[in-house]
């Protein structure tokens, strides 16, 4: 019994005295599980230098006065959800819709034309281009359509919607699409406009099926 008490006493004396004023450290790690590439898609707005713009402001350059100047780009990538058309064709599609408010400073407006141009399309590592490509003995073709390719925004907001459809698709291949948006400011109105910053709000909506 004495030995046991002695052992317990020795053990107790080795236990540090904890108090709330102690400083301790603890390594914390966190891992974010990104959305699986299956059935997922990512859309982003890029600057003309291919930098993700986030939701920052984009500057229209002076080169846009009187002629089209590339103002921003967009990037879409994702492995999409197969749908079956009436003829049995498998397809995936996405659409991107832009709404532009008038470019204005107070009550002053500078009319502008907006042009939408497609860039490249890839499926996996294959470049599709306009005529498509064969991947794994399946022909894949990407089509596009704009409700209007050039949009004129004067005193009222305007919307343009593009729909892209990929036929012959199969789950697991990554579909990438990019495009450029050009802006042209009315030369006479821009040259005669008062000093100040003219702002247009761009609202982007993306639909995938």
């Amino acid at each position, binding site marked *: 019994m004495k030995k046991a008490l002695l052992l317990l006493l020795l053990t107790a004396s080795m236990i540090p005295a904890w108090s709330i004023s102690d400083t301790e450290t603890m390594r914390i790690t966190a891992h974010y599980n990104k959305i699986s590439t299956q059935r997922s898609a990512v859309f982003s707005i890029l600057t003309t230098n291919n930098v993700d713009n986030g939701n920052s402001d984009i500057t229209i350059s002076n080169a846009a006065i009187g002629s089209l100047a590339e103002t921003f780009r967009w990037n879409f990538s994702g492995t999409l959800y197969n749908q079956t058309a009436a003829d049995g064709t498998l397809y995936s599609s996405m659409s991107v819709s832009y709404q532009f408010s008038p470019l204005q400073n107070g009550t002053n407006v500078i009319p502008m034309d907006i042009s939408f141009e497609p860039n490249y399309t890839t499926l996996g590592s294959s470049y599709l281009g306009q005529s498509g490509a064969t991947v794994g003995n399946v022909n894949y073709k990407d089509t596009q359509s704009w409700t209007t390719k050039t949009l004129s925004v004067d005193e009222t907001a305007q919307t343009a919607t593009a729909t892209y459809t990929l036929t012959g698709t199969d789950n697991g291949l990554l579909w990438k699409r990019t495009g450029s948006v050009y802006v042209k400011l009315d030369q006479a109105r821009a040259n005669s406009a008062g000093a100040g910053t003219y702002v247009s*709000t761009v609202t*982007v909506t993306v639909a995938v099926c």
Partner: protein
Amino acid sequence: MMYRYFHQSKKSLCLSVLLIVVCVSPLCASLIQNDTIPRGIAAGGTTYTSYGNFHMKFTIPDTLSFLLAKTTDSTNTEVITDYAIADAGVNVAVANLILVSRAAMNTSFTFLFSWNELKQTPDIGNAISYMVAFRDSANTLNKPATGTKILSYTYVKADSDYTSTKLGSVIVNMDEDSYQSALSGEYSDTITVTLQGEG
């Protein structure tokens, strides 16, 4: 007693661990929130999403300039630096005053005209006195106070035209008596126009 000490130590340990967890939980949440989350959409059937808004901006810097243009200039750009006066005792338009500004409507601009007298070249003390006036766009002749060689004219921007605007004509009236009694020769002077203020 040893048991109590041991028991208290366990409680302290538990309390400390609890405190650590309480302290680091927000940090953990912060780390998760700050991770790179792809902006966009998770598909599955038909999915609609708003990417969000951003702004396109175009900035026009303020510009302010003016010039004295030829009275025969229809483009308001031909600068005049010399004018030969032929008549005395009459109002002669020697230049157009042109303003270029992107200032807003109701902005006022004050121009100051100053001059001396026409002196003979080479200067041997002979001179011809003259007056400078300004005929504005309403055809009003703005004259200097009697006996002075300075004229102030204020223009208030009345429209939203930011291109070149002709404000009026600079008028010179050579004193006839002084001209008639002057010795023959070439006489000259410089009219200085200063944009004094903008408000």
